[in-house]
């Protein structure tokens, strides 16, 4: 009998997220307001749960707009959720700093995790040193009017790291060496447009690394780069992870790449996780109808596929995240639903939870457990 996924912290959990929801209000017209139409929301993240262990690379994958970036930004409180828990286990360093500024966080479990979603904004600053983000677009995420030196000095100044200019200079030179922009002196005075795409992404990584974080959300860090240089950046990221004991959330739409990088992976669709588990197991034995369709669509550099049309077991297009279909949100596109009459009544009315189908492999689909069975489980 399967289990239902509930994030349970253990001694090596760094972050866990429970039923996270991030909605963005849709701008309303004047008419909407006078007619008292109810406000509408983009359900970018709509009930997401997962847990991440120390030193792990946790993948978030799925098509454009499914909520990967919003999930990543919410964990870092770069956007605010409307509901759910974001539990993070702070290091001593952070607890001390909070204490110094008079903040005494409430621990929500025996491992001294803190619910980040409840931290008042004025106490967020020290948290930035623990949790950082690497952005997708190495072109857009660096200020074009700043030199590399200035780009890297800014966070040091904001966080009051390095008392003197000399100290900051040393820190910057060191971080440039860490990301292999050597000799550092050659890069300090360059502007972003004087760097190649790969070099810019290294500056992005350097900026994230500078505050000595422990947890990094990397949002498609190589998707804008040419394929021949991607592996070089990924190798660097993995090396830094080992050396500084980092934990990564690795966002990607490239499942083949995830297979090389991520220990575990979550496949998202319309703001929810539909399948989650050990990366190889999920990709080599996908169980959710959506994951199966995604995998069947991935082109491969093998001329054998030339003579055949690809079978794509999926219908229609991604619906708007404003009006989420009732029941299973994948139903309007699901060919398994069409073929499996016995479960249709469940698909139409109830959202399936993440069910453990095999060890560390969870799927959100009524094929793998009916609501009756699931309720039984919840009771237990």
């Amino acid at each position, binding site marked *: 009998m399967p289990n239902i996924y509930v994030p349970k912290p253990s001694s090596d959990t760094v972050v866990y997220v429970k039923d996270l929801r991030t909605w963005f209000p849709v701008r309303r017209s004047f008419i909407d307001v006078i007619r008292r139409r109810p406000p509408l929301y983009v359900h970018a993240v709509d009930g997401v749960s997962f847990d991440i262990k120390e030193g792990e690379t946790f993948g978030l994958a799925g098509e454009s707009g499914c909520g990967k970036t919003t999930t990543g930004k919410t964990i870092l409180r770069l956007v605010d959720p409307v509901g759910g828990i974001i539990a993070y286990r702070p290091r001593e360093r952070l607890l001390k700093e909070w204490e110094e500024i008079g903040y005494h966080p409430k621990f929500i479990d025996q491992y001294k995790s803190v619910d980040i979603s409840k931290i008042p904004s004025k106490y967020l600053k020290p948290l930035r040193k623990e949790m950082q983000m690497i952005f997708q677009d190495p072109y857009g995420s660096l200020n074009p009017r700043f030199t590399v030196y200035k780009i890297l000095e800014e966070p040091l100044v904001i966080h009051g790291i390095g008392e003197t200019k000399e100290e900051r200079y040393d820190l910057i030179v060191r971080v440039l060496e860490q990301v292999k922009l050597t000799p550092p002196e050659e890069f300090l005075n360059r502007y972003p447009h004087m760097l190649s795409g790969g070099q810019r992404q290294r500056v992005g990584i350097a900026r994230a690394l500078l505050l000595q974080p422990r947890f990094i959300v990397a949002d498609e860090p190589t998707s804008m780069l040419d394929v*021949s240089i991607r592996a070089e950046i990924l190798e660097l990221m993995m090396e830094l992870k080992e050396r500084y004991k980092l934990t990564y959330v690795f966002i990607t739409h490239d499942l083949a790449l995830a297979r090389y990088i991520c220990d575990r992976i979550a496949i998202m669709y319309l703001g929810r996780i539909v399948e989650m588990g050990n990366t190889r197991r999920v990709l080599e034995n996908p169980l959710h109808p959506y994951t199966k369709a995604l995998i069947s669509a991935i082109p491969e*550099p093998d001329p054998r596929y*030339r003579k055949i049309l690809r079978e794509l077991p999926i219908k229609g*297009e991604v619906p708007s995240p404003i009006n989420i279909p009732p029941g299973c949100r994948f139903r309007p596109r699901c060919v398994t639903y069409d073929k499996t009459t016995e479960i249709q009544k469940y698909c139409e009315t109830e959202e399936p939870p993440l069910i453990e189908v095999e060890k560390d492999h969870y799927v959100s689909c009524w094929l793998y457990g009916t609501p009756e069975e699931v309720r039984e489980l919840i009771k237990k």
Partner: protein
Amino acid sequence: MLEVKNLKTYFYTTKGVVKAVDGVSFKLNKGEVLGIAGESGCGKSTTAYSLIRLVPPPGKIVDGELIFEGRDILKLSEEDFRKQIRWKKISMVFQGAMNALNPVYTVGDQIAEVLMLHKHMTKEEAMKEVYKLLEMVGIDPKRAKSYPHELSGGMKQRVVIAMALALRPPLVIADEPTTALDVVVQAQIMNLLKRLQREHQMSIILITHDLSLIAEMAEKVAIMYAGKIVEYGTAEQVFLNPQHPYTRGLLASIPRLTGDIHKLEFIPGVPPDLSNPPPGCRFAPRCKFKFEPCDKEEPPVIEVEPGHYVSCWLHAKK
């Protein structure tokens, strides 16, 4: 059907001459799909623009021949080229075209305009053809009345393909036709192109940075690097028996969905500045097999097996 001989297209910028396409040659048979692959900036789009003689200024085709159906179409006057060749015989799906659809006209009107302009059809005749074209690319003909913003990315891309097919040209150039699309939509568009190509015996030149897409469709493959074709052959030759160090490096850097997880390779360095390319082999600064002749003289093109050409000194030695 098409033979490109020593094509050179340069951009005369204020900072110098950018040799975007620098001596490109290939052949394309009727009903065949040629894939041109290479990293961004290697000259793929410029090659495509050259073939329909729409190189944007300050670019100019400075040398070469484009033999199409037996004559050099570079020698035609612009007016003859426009009347006889462009769109009618050779059409193009431009990179990013789906975002360049005119937002104030319906997509039906935009396709109809191509027909009215080139085939002198009346609006009514044109609309009849528009419905057929939409059906052909898998869009409900009722959507002819939609404006671009009312369509998804995949549908807009289908509209753009319908426009390229409007005059039923024997040769279509598709420049990065799926680059901005999600993987499922991308696979749908690739299926569509494959189906249309077979049903209409079209020739297609598929241009993309994604070698996997080329493998999905092309019979002949050209690998471009820094303005030149460095390897050319059948898909089987290039993918299963790659001979140029660049092609090998590219293939080894692509993550695979199945099989063992080996270490992903990368090619150190970056492509050269095309206004100041290195002497000799342009790949030499990044090549781990570089030896004496490489940075002195340009490597010759060697036929390593029938129909499989490689431009590299490693093969010239043998």
